[in-house]
């Protein structure tokens, strides 16, 4: 869907390139998260995809088409763009802000209006309540929702999101993340997502691209990165709770000992039960609550196996024991 091939960018007056030798692909329907410290070049990479910044060298293709040969304004109307500061137009109402791209694309008025109402509803806002307000009358969380609605307005297949939930408080951030992931399940947009928060990256990403000093240091699925960090930088970025993070991404069902035949009684499990699809972290929580070193694993309401403390410990040692 998006193919970036060996791009490089040096800003005027800078000694070293902001982005160098960056190559990656983003598959259709995936969320690809660029994560790294401030100033590592992740935002520059994102902004080169919609040509807010022009690369010095290298190629960027979207669906096989070279974006550097497209008209920038036309290109950008097909790519949703969400930034941390949101950048709503302060002199336009919320409805008018969301209607921005449909307006540029000269959609008929009725179609635009219907789409705007539908989108506001979709991102969890009441159109009747906020539609006629101006941006400064909204809370930070509401504005961020409007920012997402605006980016989705013309139903672009691709979204670029630059720390979209960075400016809101942690509780609202988690809610926005969850809601966005839920929307994404139906939308299946191809998304490039920039964050400096590794937890957000692991939560949101189908695929992680870890960037440091303008270069990609590691790419892979969250579990691949967590279980085999490429170097000390990645290890430090992942934090001291790498093992626990792995347990958050591992399903209980994958570590359980399956029962050959369903047991007659649930003796020894005592209602201490998790679903097979729930993360091992939840199983651990259950063990602590019940002061037990094993939990039953269910699929639906049928017990299918048992997960023990020892098998969790063995798993952690196996995948993260000594790092790189």
């Amino acid at each position, binding site marked *: 869907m998006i193919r970036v091939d060996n791009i490089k960018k040096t800003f005027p007056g800078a000694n070293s390139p902001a982005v160098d030798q960056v190559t990656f692909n983003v598959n259709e329907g995936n969320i690809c998260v660029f994560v790294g410290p401030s100033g590592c070049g992740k935002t520059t990479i994102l902004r080169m995809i*919609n040509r*807010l910044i022009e690369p010095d060298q290298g190629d960027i293709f979207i669906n096989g088409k070279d974006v550097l040969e497209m008209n920038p*304004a*036309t*290109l*950008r*109307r*097909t790519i949703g*763009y969400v*930034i941390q*500061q*949101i*950048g*709503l*137009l*302060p*002199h336009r109402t919320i409805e008018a802000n969301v209607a*921005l*791209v449909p307006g*540029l694309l000269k959609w008929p008025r009725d179609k635009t209006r219907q789409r705007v109402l539908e989108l506001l509803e979709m991102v969890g806002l009441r159109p009747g309540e906020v539609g006629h307000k*101006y941006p*400064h*009358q909204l809370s930070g969380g509401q504005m961020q929702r409007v*920012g997402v609605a*605006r980016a989705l307005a013309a139903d672009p297949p691709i979204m*670029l999101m630059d720390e979209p939930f960075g400016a809101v408080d942690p509780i609202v951030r988690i809610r926005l993340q969850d809601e966005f992931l839920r929307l994404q399940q139906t939308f299946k947009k191809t998304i490039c997502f920039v964050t400096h928060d590794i937890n957000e990256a692991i939560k949101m990403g189908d695929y992680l691209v870890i960037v440091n000093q303008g270069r990609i240091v590691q790419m892979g699925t969250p579990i691949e990165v967590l279980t085999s960090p490429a170097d000390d930088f990645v290890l430090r970025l992942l934090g001291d709770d790498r093992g626990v993070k792995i347990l958050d991404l591992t399903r209980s069902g994958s570590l359980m000992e399956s029962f050959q035949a369903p047991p007659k009684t649930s003796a020894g499990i005592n209602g201490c039960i998790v679903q097979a699809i729930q993360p091992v972290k939840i199983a651990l929580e259950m063990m602590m609550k019940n002061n037990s070193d094993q939990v039953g694993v269910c699929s639906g309401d049928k017990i299918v196996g048992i997960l023990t403390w020892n098998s969790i410990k063995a798993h952690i040692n196996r995948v993260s024991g000594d790092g790189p």
Partner: protein
Amino acid sequence: MNFDMDIFMDALWRLSPGYLTEHLQLVIIPMAIAILISLPAGIIITRPGYRRHSGRVMAFFNAGQTIPPLAVIAIFFPFLGLGYGPAILALTIYALLPIARNTIAAIHSVPEDVKEAAMGMGMTPREVLFSVELPLSVPAIMTGIKTSAVLTVSTAVLAALVGGKGMGAVIFSGINFFRPELILAGTIYIGIMAIVIERMISVIEWMIVPAHIR
């Protein structure tokens, strides 16, 4: 110097009103030319290609504002002579500065994130200018026009010194003939004109600027 009420009333009701239209011309013509020049100039200087020069242009405009208008007239006097034309020219140059300065400052103060989002949504640079930068700059631009208009009303008094007439003729007669009645009468009209023009521009501003960015 004693104050003669009869002369004052005569100056206030009979003499000065005749100079009102002249004086208004000395305000409106330079203002119109100044707006026509400095608005586009201010916009051009804030476009990306020229933006790096805008600091120097602002410094030039600020320096221009410190030159007394009489000095501007003196500079052009050898080329244009005395009279109405040089007075208009000097007043125009003087009126340019606050408008240009405020236009540049206003466009510069449009938040970077708003412009980035507008560009990122697919607005062309032209659309960003006309739908984002200018609407958000209107209040500050109008302030510049107001400052400039009020300044021109009072500076236009000096036009009388180079034969440009206007309310200055009344005031300077008063000075030359030691008649405070004429000075006061002329000054009252200048004051009223300044206030009325300021209010009029405020009304226009109120009509064209949306409530929430005022």
